[in-house]
């Protein structure tokens, strides 16, 4: 029961944090918007004045734009499918009582604590290296020709690396959801004659719907901006150039800040479209 006085005191005390966060968001956003309407080439003359929508037109008409959008969506979609499917399976496995449960759970969660750059490097050099990688040795052990992962199966590789990083997150959220399932419901279903697969389909999965929605929403937001994994592995080649990476290349490799900023604005719009889309599809699970 806050009084008028304590409420205004609370507002004043929260103000510094709110203002800082607002500035943190608004200043880069405004600068991106300003740059996107300018011809700005840092090493080739600097600020060359306003150009209207020219950057926007150039960015979309570039031959790299649509493939980049496609790549982004394939990576996001692929990682979502893998993390949700395996996340549900792992969560059910970890929910079983077993010896050393605490340690096993900790180990499963561990990949989430590894920095994206580090995990991508580990995958690149220790697993996917066609000469010395663990996978190459495995292939050779079975007499097969080692796969050149990052060039021949570049998208698969990136999806694998990113999924490995995000699987713990999905597992963790889904595990807590599974633990909140009333065991009497499962017993009732068992008595009602539901086989294990029906129990999964009719009881467990609907119970997890809300948690899956949250996993999908949060992961989508983060996956749209993955960068480090691509930077340290393929550098955007072999068809792995995402929208984020394209923007990076425009700004830093081509030294064209205006063009890159226009791309950034497109990325914001794309992220919002995807978010609205997802909210529409899965959002109804949240108000049940």
């Amino acid at each position, binding site marked *: 029961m806050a009084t008028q006085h304590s409420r205004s005191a609370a507002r004043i005390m929260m103000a510094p944090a709110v203002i800082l966060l607002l500035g943190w968001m608004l200043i880069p956003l405004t600068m991106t918007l300003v740059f996107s309407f300018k011809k700005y080439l840092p090493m080739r003359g600097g600020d060359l004045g306003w150009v209207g929508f020219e950057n926007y037109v150039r960015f979309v008409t570039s031959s790299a734009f649509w493939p980049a959008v496609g790549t982004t969506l394939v990576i996001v979609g692929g990682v979502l499918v893998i993390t949700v499917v395996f996340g549900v399976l792992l969560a059910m496995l970890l929910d079983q009582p077993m010896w050393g449960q605490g340690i096993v759970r900790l180990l499963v969660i561990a990949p989430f604590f590894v920095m994206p750059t580090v995990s991508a490097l580990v995958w690149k050099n220790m697993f996917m290296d066609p000469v010395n990688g663990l996978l190459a040795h495995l292939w050779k052990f079975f007499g097969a020709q080692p796969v050149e992962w990052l060039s021949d199966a570049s998208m698969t590789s990136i999806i694998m690396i990113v999924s490995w990083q995000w699987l713990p997150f999905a597992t963790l959220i889904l595990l807590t959801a599974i633990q909140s399932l009333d065991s009497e419901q499962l017993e009732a279903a068992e*008595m009602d004659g539901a086989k294990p697969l029906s129990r999964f389909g009719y009881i467990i999965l609907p119970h997890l719907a809300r948690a899956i929605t949250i996993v999908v929403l949060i992961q989508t937001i983060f996956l749209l901006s993955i960068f480090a994994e691509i930077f340290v592995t393929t550098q955007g080649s072999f068809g792995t150039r995402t929208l984020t990476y394209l923007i990076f290349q425009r700004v830093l490799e081509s030294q064209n800040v205006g063009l890159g900023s226009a791309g950034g604005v497109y990325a914001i719009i794309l992220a919002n479209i995807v978010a609205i889309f997802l909210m529409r599809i899965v959002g109804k699970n949240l108000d049940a």
Partner: protein
Amino acid sequence: MGRITLDKVSKSFGEVEVIPPLDLTIDDGEFVVFVGPSGCGKSTLLRLIAGLEDVSGGEIRIDKQPATHLPPAKRGLAMVFQSYALYPHMSVKKNIAFPMKMAGIPEAEQERKIADAAAALNLTDYLDRRPGQLSGGQRQRVAIGRAIVREPAAFLFDEPLSNLDAALRVGMRMEISELHKKLATTMIYVTHDQVEAMTMADKIVVLRAGVIEQVGSPLELYREPRNLFVAGFIGSPKMNLVTGAGDLMQGAATIGVRPEHTAASKTEGRWKGVVGVSEHLGSDTFLHVHETGLAETVTVRVGGEFDANHGDTVYLTPEEDKIHRFDGEGLRIA
């Protein structure tokens, strides 16, 4: 048909034996209540019959068929859980249809059975709602509806009324009793509430620490409790168990006198005491009498007109032919 036989059934969780070997027969069409204090193993026993727990020893037979190792679904029993265990994401209709859907019963027959069950349980107007939109009593009825449509050999109820408020509980008690009369199917009902046991049961099984203390009809248990535990457990308020009552003992170690079999007077009587608390229910008054020298408190039921307040002196006289006598080991002396 629903005759259930337990033959030396026992259950241990690890080292702990919660149910020592136990024999029990439940006849077809009987309403059997398992009653006992918390942790006496009554729910475990029910879960063993349901097949939700594996027995550690002994055999369960349903209709003379061995069912010890049958999975729950194959035993032909339906269970109503304490938490109702309704499927929250399904409508009432789908909840009731679920067991039939699992059994692959044709749609038309499902519809007919749902309509029948809904009519019988006053759920017709709520079929499209989700369990979360129903009151406690309605959820309870949905759970029962889900059990009825399976046409089971026996219904198992695991403390089904303990989440309801007192008024609703009395109503549901009647509904379940009526349902039993109508269906004439075997019902096994677990409760810790001896009022539920007394009012609903054909046969009561009193359990303590996994051991059957007595099996009998409600009135048998009331009139002839086999030992001190049953004597103290059945009846409300509890029977007064007293020692050192002089010539009334007749060689017994403990005698029991029910509050309703004791008369109170302000002027004369066998035992003298001081009124502690008097509970006025209107029709009756329960006096909790101290300082009788027999037990810490002796409870006595008197008419609602009897006027006694805290600190008054009263005289109590037990009806001698209704005194229960128990020996040193707590067993009834015939």
